[in-house]
């Protein structure tokens, strides 16, 4: 159970203008500006939930993760994770969580991954049988048994990310924080990682909190999303609700023979080329079947498909709506 109440965090940032003379000036007198990274952030996440935490760069996603994992101390507010305040009982708290920073490695660069795993076992004081069981399971699920004898620096990004994820799960944490786990991965690795996270959540009942810019991650994985912008939680709901909000718009893609000249009420062309058209429908004005009927009266339809807005488009429209 994760509970955040009115968390605030401000960063003090030194600022100066570009240029050498300005740099010298800054040595003598520094000017600071204060950036409020989080304002009154509150939310609750139940055990076993999988939550997508989204928002544009600099919105406060990483700061929230860092507060929840005990790295940062907030200015004010309460945070209780399985009954513990992360920054006060750091050591007891972090024993129960796993953290993957997509952009930073936790493996020792020059030694085989298996050696890193051994050291992590000692850091977390995992006993031998549990370690062996976890290692066998993780190497099989993540398909890394071939590569754990290779030094980390020689792995590809996708291989390394799978090892990173395994490394953060060796101590069987109850909560897993994933900070952009699929960043920079190719399609195959992305799918492997997603599949694994899904299995982890459904089989081990691990609570997963995931930040990402990749909407496919969100679509494939999470039921619930939290949207943060400019340090404030703007939206907390399920992906389905969000889709419903945006479901009044459908996209029709039509291949046809003939000339499609006019679009009726509630229909607008986004593309109309020789024999191919894309039309956005406002379903509050015109139903899908009515639209198709209108089109088929004008032309001979070869192929037609109806799609709802993609998660990507929904998020863009959300960012617009909240002006972030």
């Amino acid at each position, binding site marked *: 159970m994760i509970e955040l109440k009115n968390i605030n965090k401000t*960063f*003090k940032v030194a600022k100066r203008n570009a240029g050498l003379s300005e740099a010298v000036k800054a040595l003598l007198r520094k000017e600071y500006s204060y950036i409020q990274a989080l304002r009154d952030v509150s939310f609750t996440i139940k055990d076993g939930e999988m939550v997508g935490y989204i928002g544009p760069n*600099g919105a406060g996603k*990483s*700061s929230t993760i*860092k507060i929840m*994992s*005990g*790295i*940062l*101390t907030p200015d004010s507010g309460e945070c209780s994770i399985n009954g513990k305040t992360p*920054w006060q009982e*750091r*050591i*007891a708290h*972090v*024993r129960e*969580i796993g*953290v993957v*920073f997509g*952009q*930073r490695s*936790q493996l*020792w*660069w*020059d*030694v085989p991954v298996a*050696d*890193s795993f*051994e*050291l992590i076992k*000692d*850091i*977390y*004081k995992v006993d031998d049988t549990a370690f062996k069981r976890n290692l066998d399971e993780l190497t099989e699920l993540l398909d890394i048994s071939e590569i754990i004898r290779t*030094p980390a620096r020689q792995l590809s990004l996708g291989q390394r990310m799978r090892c990173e994820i395994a490394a953060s799960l060796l101590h069987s944490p109850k909560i897993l924080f994933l*900070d952009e786990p699929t960043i920079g991965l190719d399609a195959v690795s992305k799918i492997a990682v997603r599949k694994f996270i899904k299995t982890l959540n459904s089989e081990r009942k691990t609570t997963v909190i995931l930040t990402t810019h990749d909407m496919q991650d969100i679509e494939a994985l999470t039921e619930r999303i939290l949207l943060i912008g400019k340090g404030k939680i703007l939206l907390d709901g399920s992906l389905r609700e969000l889709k419903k909000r945006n479901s009044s718009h459908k996209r029709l893609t039509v291949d046809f023979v003939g000339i499609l000249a006019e679009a009726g009420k509630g229909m607008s062309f986004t593309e109309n080329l020789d024999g191919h058209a894309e039309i956005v429908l406002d379903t509050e004005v015109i139903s899908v079947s009515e639209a198709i009927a209108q089109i088929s009266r004008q032309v001979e339809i070869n192929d037609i498909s109806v799609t709802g807005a993609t998660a990507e488009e929904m998020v863009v429209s959300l960012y617009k709506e909240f002006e972030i």
Partner: protein
Amino acid sequence: MNLYWKYASIILRSQMQYKVSFIMSAVGQFLVSFTTFLGVYFMFSRFNSVKGFTFSEVLLCFAVILTSFSLAECFVRGFDAFSGIISNGEFDRIMVRPRNEILQVLASRIEFSRIGRLLQALVMFAYAIPASRVDWTFDKILTLIFMLAGGIIVFSGLFIIYASLCFFTIEGLEFMNIFTDGGREFGRYPFSVYGEGVLKFLTFVIPLALFQYYPFIYLIGKSDNTCYMFLPLVGMLFIIPCLIFWRIGVRHYQSTGS
């Protein structure tokens, strides 16, 4: 402590991947402090004593400082790279592991090439102990041990302060080196040779003299105040404000953007 050796073994394995670099820097370290040794030697070949201390006495003093510094450095120098650990985000990782932060920082940067310096200090010790003509009774030996232990702790404290400052500035502050590397360099001579003011400062503010000057004059018989023997233990208390300062620093930690 067990964990520390595990870290040490993994770092050793990493450094062994670059064998030549490892051996070169160990040799380099040895040569660097060997030149300081030569400096002291040549000075005494011209002047037979400095402020009433003979060559062999100064050598003993130097050996004590160098050994305690090298030992402290071997274990605690991780803090020297601490600004790097903060700015590349490695400290985030340290914070999410269920072990003491200080231990992890230390263990993440163990410098085996410093063994060169340590070796040199031991050579000097082996030479200075018989040469100093100190009558090695039990209390003198104990004093020497106190001096070494006190030195390790005080130098460690200085390294911790140095690191804690990074929490506030992100960059390390070079002026702290005056007390660490400077302490080692100036510590070649008993601190009294630098005058009353320096001695007072090094007694009450940065307690380097507590494990060097006072027990040292007791050791060579220039003073028979037995209290001096225990001053290094008082000096060890210096570590407490250092650790408090570290705690404050951790609270203040801002992390870096990702």
